[in-house]
């Protein structure tokens, strides 16, 4: 049931690579769409098979690979993975759909995207630390190419920056994994082995910290975020969608799965740091976004802020906050993808992303009315207006975290206020105002540009009105995650003992 999610896209990628060269971009794009479409359908099938009552992993698939290294092909899914898989499959399809029909070197482009999609899916399913790490690293190079070949201005710079940051992140994560296994005294990298490993808390803390920095770069959390604006802005819209919608989630997923999952005691110990860190990210991202003049950059910074909510939910690790955080990953993925797509359309039509040049796009005949309407919708969703998916997920995080970290939570609430500020700036300058008679001869928006936006918008609204369909999948998983984490004070006692033993 699971392997196809990984191998079908990768096989598809190979297929794309050896498509006859005479096919034009549109046709190649069509093939890619078909493949990713199939993956989406398969994912839906997966949902039908998923057993909500099971707390642990299900549909496990195991195959020995390099046992001596403790590396095995070992995949399984739980509520957390399921959500991430769904996001990955959907956004891959969206990204391909939103890619221009005129993309240069299409076969290469689409095969890379499919490759990435498969790799990421694998990472989300991996039950083996080494396997996860490999798949995590796999997507690095394709993305480097996707950015540096099809990107916009300053793409080499951005691509390299992305490459280096992710590489560093990889190194740290690898270090942490090895450390865990090594201190655990085995050579088995399998997840449950790591789970069962009894590490002294101090060691846990160190490993967790390294892990946090590693994934923190990926998410990114401040101050490791500076690769993000450059990368997101330079990347073409579909790539930006994948980067922001899916790749960033690898970071939070990793933190939840390996940080919270493997080092619960340490987690409960340093969670106050995390909460502060999260709140700082939220505020920082929001405030910096306000100053941006380039709408794509603005959206990029908004992403930093929103990942902060996820971290807050994780830090609080109440059942509610974890469910909220997981749902927030999904909703942020959907909304960000929608925003990047719309920004992309605006840029192709109007030819600029500068706030001071954009205006009046809401005008029904000479503007981009539907895109503007959806821009308003997505902006408001991101700003957490009720009735849209952004609100309920953020609210669950807040409600879940407030009892644990009231101050940080309230700071994040302020963050949503600031989010509203910059999105209103964006909407006012872009959609409202009068058209510039010199420039307002824009092409009309094609159905191909509309469709993905409409799909995402529909999801944003439907899941906003009926959040049950979003939150229930991860409920049991969150419960078990939280159950594993002891109360902070117990940990401190244990810690004293542990340290005492050392003296």
């Amino acid at each position, binding site marked *: 049931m699971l392997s196809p999610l990984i191998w079908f896209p990768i096989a598809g990628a190979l297929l794309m690579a050896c498509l006859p060269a005479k096919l034009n971009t549109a046709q190649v794009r069509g093939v890619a769409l078909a493949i990713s479409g199939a993956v989406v359908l398969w994912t839906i099938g997966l949902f039908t098979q998923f057993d909500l009552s099971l707390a642990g992993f299900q549909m496990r698939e195991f195959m020995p690979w390099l046992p001596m290294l403790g590396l095995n092909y070992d995949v399984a899914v739980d509520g957390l993975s399921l959500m991430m898989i769904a996001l990955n499959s959907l956004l891959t399809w969206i990204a391909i759909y939103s890619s221009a029909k005129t993309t240069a070197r299409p076969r290469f482009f689409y095969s890379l995207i499919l490759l990435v999609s498969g790799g990421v899916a694998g990472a989300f399913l991996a039950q083996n630390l080494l396997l996860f790490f490999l798949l995590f690293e796999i997507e690095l190079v394709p993305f480097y190419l996707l950015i540096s070949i099809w990107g916009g201005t*300053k793409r*080499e710079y951005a691509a*390299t*920056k992305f490459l*280096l940051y992710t590489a560093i992140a990889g190194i*740290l994560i690898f270090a942490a994994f090895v450390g865990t296994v090594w201190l655990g005294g085995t050579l088995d990298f399998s997840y449950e082995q790591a789970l069962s490993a009894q590490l*002294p808390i*101090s060691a846990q*803390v*160190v490993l967790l*910290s390294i892990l946090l*920095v*590693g994934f923190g770069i990926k998410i990114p959390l401040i*101050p*490791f975020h*500076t690769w993000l604006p450059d990368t997101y802005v330079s990347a073409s819209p579909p790539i930006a969608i994948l980067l922001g919608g899916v790749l960033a989630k690898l970071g939070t997923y990793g933190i939840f799965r390996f940080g919270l999952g493997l080092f619960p005691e340490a987690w409960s110990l340093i969670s106050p*740091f995390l909460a502060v860190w999260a709140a700082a990210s939220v505020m*920082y991202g929001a*405030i*910096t*976004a306000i*100053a941006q003049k380039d709408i794509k950059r603005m959206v990029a910074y908004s992403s930093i802020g929103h990942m902060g909510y996820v971290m807050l939910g994780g830090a609080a690790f*109440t*059942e*509610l906050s974890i*469910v909220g955080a997981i749902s927030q990953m999904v909703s942020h993925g959907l909304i960000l993808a929608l925003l990047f797509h719309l920004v992309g359309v605006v840029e192709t039509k109007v030819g600029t992303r500068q706030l001071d040049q954009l205006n009046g796009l809401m*005008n*029904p*005949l000479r503007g981009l*009315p539907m895109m503007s309407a959806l821009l*308003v919708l997505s902006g*408001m969703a991101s700003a957490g*207006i*009720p*009735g849209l998916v952004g609100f*309920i997920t953020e609210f*669950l995080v*807040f*409600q*879940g975290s*407030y009892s644990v970290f009231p101050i940080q939570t*309230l700071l994040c*609430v302020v963050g*949503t*206020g600031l989010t*509203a*500020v910059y999105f*209103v*700036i964006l909407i006012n300058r872009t*959609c*409202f*105002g*009068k*058209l510039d008679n010199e420039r307002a001869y824009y092409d009309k928006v094609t159905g191909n540009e509309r469709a993905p936006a409409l799909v995402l918008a529909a999801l944003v609204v439907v899941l906003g009105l009926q*959040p*049950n369909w979003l939150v*229930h999948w991860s409920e049991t998983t969150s*419960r078990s995650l939280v159950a594993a984490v002891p109360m902070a004070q117990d940990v401190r006692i244990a810690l004293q003992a542990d340290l005492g033993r*050392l*003296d």
Partner: protein
Amino acid sequence: MVGADIFAPNSLTGSLTGFFAQTSWLIPCYPMLGAAFSIFWSPALIRRSGPRPVGYLNLLMTVVALTHSSLAFVAMWHQPPQFLQLSWLQVADLNLTLPLELSALTLGASVVVTVLNLLVQVYAIGYLEMDWGWGRLYSLLALFEAGLTALVLCDSLFFSYILLEILTLGTYLIVGFWFNQSLVVTGARDAFLTKRIGDLILLMGVLALYPLAGTWNFSELALWAETVPANDAIAPLTLSLIGVALVWGPVSKCAQFPLHLWLDEAMEGPLPTTILRNSVVVATGAWVLVKLAPVILLSPVATGMVVVIGSVSALGGSLIAAAQIDIKRVMSYLASAYMGLIFVAVGSAQPETALMLVLTHAIATALLLMAVGSLILNVVTQDLTQMGGLWSRRPITGLSFLVGIAGLVALPPFGGFWALLNLLNDLVDSGQWWLVAVVMVTNAVAGFALMRMFGLAFAGKVTPSTTRAAEPLWLMVLPMVAMAGFTLHLPLVMKQAELLPNNLSLVSPMAIGLLASSALGLGVAIAFYILERITRPEKLLPPLLNRLLAYDFYTPKVYQFTVIALVDKLSQLTDWLDIYVVDGLVNLVGSVSLFGGESLKYINTGRMQFYVFVMAAVSLALGLYMSLYFLPKLPV
């Protein structure tokens, strides 16, 4: 009590009308349906025909909603409130079910809302007959109708918050209706952000309240509030903080100082929406405040704040209104003023009186604004100084105007009088004399402002703008006249609804004092602007004071130099930090390139290793920092 016999003979309940009560949750759905269908008339979809069908469709839906709420109202008349539960979201330990309170009060409120919507939508057909944006306008009007009816029916703080937020978005969109116009754009922005600030502070209160009270249902909150003083488990500070937080939502909704400016700017929106906004939408804040009164009254700090903010808004609002030359802005500041009085009522523990004021104010304001609209539509200006001498040719509008004034200012036997008298009596009983003064003065100044507006428009000399002025289209006159009818009959309705306490009498000192204050305000204005015996007050007042009032105490400037400046500068700062410091620290090379402005290639330069080194170092540093405490004791 004749009314009781006419309404809801008990035999009926449980039967057909009972069914209507049970299905009251449908009431907000009708307008939403209309709004949804409006999409089919969006300019992108219709090319060959016009958008008007949207208007008729939504009108129909409003009629349906009105009929349903009236039937339900009849069913619930003299019945104990019933509660419906609609489960929405159940996750982890959180169970969000939407409780609806079905009572004569809530259903009566929804009848008022739907009636106003009906009239406004008819009015809009006339007022916006030249407009092509009907699709957006009517769907948004429907959204407001749905939101308002849902709000009055819903019995949960959490869902009220949700509805308020949605209405905030609605305000943004409906004020931004004429988005091609610059002031509209800024007005929409400020309205949205101001209301959002309030919403979020309210949200903080909502978050904080739940762990303590364990519920968001107003009715249960009221019960909880009674038990609180008994157990001193909760620190008064916490209660005060929560109370204060809960108050700020209503403060922004009701355009109270210091969050009042948005209402002024929202006047850029089309007038029919203004009617709705000033009469009922701002009142949503008051409604929620009333519902929250038990919780807020727990904390003297919060209560005090309510009273102070209310008084300041009442006095300041009415004074500013008296100095405006823009006819719509007179109304906007009067709305703030009357909401202020409502705040005072809540703060002095008179929720019933507050609701009564909400009702009388809504009806009278709606009428006044309809009259204003019928004026400005064909004198082609909102500038009072360019109007005059309209009475003989615009008597219907003029009369409606006068009726509106009578309904708003305390003039017996009209609604406003009884509401204010109620308020005063309680204030006197509780010996809060300075509040008595506030109410009296506000009433007098408001009377002055209104009569001044009337005088400037209808009395005096004919101006070029008013040389040619005929009553407008019947589609505007008709709702206006109907509204005037309501205003005139409101006292009877109130009597029938037993809103008027029996102890009210006209000979009590308070009644006379109140009457005197109205007479004073109106009289002075008449002397100034209708008889024109005395030179205009703006000549008598010191110019500074005059400007201070005319420009709303320069609140825009104040905002500019405080909040806005702060956020702006802060964002500039962080942006700078982000580019030059953070990025610079984390990668010096990057910073070099950003200073240099041109992009650079790391590959095949020696910088690469150095760059990696810096990266690693920083990451390590943070890792160390986070595990500093444990590092020395590592078991390795």
